[in-house]
């Protein structure tokens, strides 16, 4: 069988799925949590609780501010001790609701049993409202509010719903475990989203290195028509939204365009699980599966973690941060973000905590470009990182725009493949920000 894949560029980093045999464990509820109001793309939510308020699990503590925003719920029951700006994972100061945990009392109406509810009740509008109220966001890392993606503009018609189960980042196994252990919930979540969108074709795309997940999902979809599980080639960035659409439908998202222009809506597999919980169990997004991994850790874990759990508590459970660790990454090694502050807490988009040693992550000195062209061959967007590096260092933004720097998806293929160890993506990122500024200021005129 020929596996599907995107058609331009890509790299093959070593997969290092160290935690793939670790079953999902419930992480103990911490004594204190701090829940960020900026866990989704767009405007941070507005806190609706005050110091001293009693909250229950699943109670709304933040409401959307504007259109692209989302609800935030309490992940624990207890007393609000502070509503204040704190440093989040990336070190950015954002509003957090801090809660001292007392017991584990759920808000009314939330079903906490594991029984699988197969009957999907309600009109598409009602389902969409439930998803919105549950604060579901894209859980692959981009954290775009799911309800907005599920409500495309009236003039655009969705034909495909693609469930992104590629998990192409090395190390990360959270989605893999979720698929193996909860395939029915994921399939039902996909069916709910298909009903909301009114699409007939649902494709669940799994990379070939997860055969157990593929089999589990295939069994779970046997009883339904119009929902396919397909195997994807192991290649990074297979799970990039644009790459996935290209691989499945051979359609290309135009420059600066939205995926819906190709008739596709892509949702992450963990998002699908969250949608099931939101609709069938009335349970908002208060916890997620998170991989805790790294060669230097004594144990590899996949935890079901309440949102707002401090990173330090999670690391302590595997024996604390090892002496030889140099970097803690939230997400995978290709696109994840380095954690600046171990007191920071987990968010809806935190799929993985990866601890790397200096040898694994040290940046070696940059040498000169020998124009080997590896970056160009690796770029999945068909760009020329070597050229953008040169133009970027010279500040030639007009030429950068001509060479479509705005198409860069920041996947890191170029930099990770460069034999001269040039920080290509650093240069491209900063230059791209400048070019976008210029484009926006021109649009205003």
């Amino acid at each position, binding site marked *: 069988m020929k596996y599907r894949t995107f058609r331009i560029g890509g790299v093959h980093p070593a997969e290092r799925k160290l935690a793939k045999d670790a079953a999902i464990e419930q992480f103990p509820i911490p004594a204190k949590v701090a829940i960020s109001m900026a866990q989704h793309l767009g405007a941070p939510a507005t806190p609706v609780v005050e110091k001293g308020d009693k909250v229950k699990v699943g109670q709304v503590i933040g409401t959307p501010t504007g259109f692209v925003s989302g609800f935030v719920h309490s992940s624990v029951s207890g007393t609000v001790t502070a509503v204040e700006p704190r440093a989040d994972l990336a070190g950015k100061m954002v509003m957090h609701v801090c809660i001292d945990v007392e017991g584990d009392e759920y808000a009314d109406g939330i079903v906490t049993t594991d029984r699988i509810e197969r009957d999907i009740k309600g009109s598409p509008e009602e389902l969409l409202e439930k998803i919105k109220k549950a604060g579901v966001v894209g859980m692959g890392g981009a954290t775009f509010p799911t309800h907005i993606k599920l409500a495309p503009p009236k003039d655009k018609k969705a034909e495909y719903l693609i469930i992104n189960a590629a998990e192409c980042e090395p190390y990360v196994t959270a989605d893999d475990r979720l698929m193996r252990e909860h395939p029915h919930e994921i399939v039902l979540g996909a069916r709910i989203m298909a009903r909301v969108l009114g699409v007939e074709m649902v494709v669940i795309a799994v990379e070939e290195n997860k055969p157990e997940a593929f089999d589990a999902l295939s069994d779970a979809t046997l009883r339904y028509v119009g929902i396919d599980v397909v195997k994807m080639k192991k290649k990074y960035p297979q799970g990039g939204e644009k790459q996935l659409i290209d691989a499945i439908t051979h359609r290309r998202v135009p420059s600066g365009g939205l995926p819906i222009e190709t008739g596709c809506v892509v949702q992450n597999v963990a998002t699908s699980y969250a949608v099931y919980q939101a609709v069938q169990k009335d349970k908002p997004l208060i916890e997620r599966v998170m991989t805790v991994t790294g060669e230097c850790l004594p144990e590899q874990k996949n935890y079901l973690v309440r949102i707002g759990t401090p990173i330090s508590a999670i690391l302590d459970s595997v024996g604390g941060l090892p002496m030889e660790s140099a970097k803690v990454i939230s997400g995978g090694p290709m696109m*994840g973000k380095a954690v600046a502050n171990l007191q920071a807490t987990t968010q809806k988009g935190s799929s993985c905590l990866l601890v790397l040693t200096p040898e694994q992550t040290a*940046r070696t000195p940059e040498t000169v470009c020998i124009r080997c062209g590896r970056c160009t061959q690796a770029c999945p967007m068909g760009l020329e990182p070597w*050229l953008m590096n040169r133009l970027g260092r010279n500040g030639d933004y007009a030429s950068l725009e001509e060479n479509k720097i705005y198409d860069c998806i920041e996947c890191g293929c170029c930099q990770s493949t460069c034999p001269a160890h040039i920080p290509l993506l650093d240069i491209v990122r900063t230059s791209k920000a400048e070019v976008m500024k210029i484009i926006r200021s021109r649009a205003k005129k």
Partner: protein
Amino acid sequence: MAKLIVSPSPHFQNKTTTQVLMNDVLIALAPATLVSLLFYGWNALLLLLVCVATCVGCEFLIEKYLRGRDIPCISATVVTGVLLALNLPPAAPWWVAFVGSLAAIGIAKMCFGGLGQNIFNPAIFGRVFLLVSFPVAMTTWSAPHGWLPIDAFSGATPLAQINEGIRQGLPANEIVAENGLSGWQAFFGLAGGSVGEASALALIIGFVYLLVRRVIKPYIPVAILGTVVVMTTIFWLVDPEKYTGPVFNLLSGGLLLGAIFMATDYVTSPMTTMGMIIYGVLIGVLTVLIRYFGSYPEGVSFAILIANAIVPLLNKYCKPKRFAA
């Protein structure tokens, strides 16, 4: 607790460095170099040592005293030295190797800014520099005795014999037959020529190694060799008396050495697949035209040098296939 590093993604780097890639090129050159030493003996070894030492020394002095830094990648310099040595006649005097190395590194590489900046392949430049400066030394093919108990081929190279013969009005196929210039001879390594042209087989082993280690993509060599085969087949079918055939052309002279090791030099070849193919075809066409119609018997070096000059243009106009139209 030690301080955590906070830096943007990606968080790991390829272990393959420029040094590793250039070491791989040296390993790929090893079979051809060893075969040439076996055939041509001490003088070939002397040429090799003079070339490598002069290249490294020249680059070291310029980098150190004019730019105040170390040689960025010493293996790349050694590759230039080895390639230049393989491009010399086996009986060439040592000072030819010395002057050629100075031209290769001093003029072709360092004048343009050193590693990664040169427009022309330094080794090819060195060879052409010698060819036009010291034509006699560069076309004297009396081969010294090697370390094998057989006599290596001495006398003019097959291509030179053909070039000379045709000028005297002899039919090409007869010259080939008369002088026993079969393709097989060149393949295993008994034809005359430059040091590195001794054995096609050894060069092909190096090519396979480069492909397996993914040091180079096959596009450039395949485009060059394919073009030469197609063009020479057409000419040969039209008039076998005047033009030599494809097998002979493929295996003789510096074609394999040039196509595999010289035209694929990263710095002086295009970045995109399309650019690589156009570049390869251009080298192939120029090589055949020079061999058939030029006054020099061998054309690969000139062809590569001319193609090097249009690489910036190819990089500018042959953009990779963009994802989004």
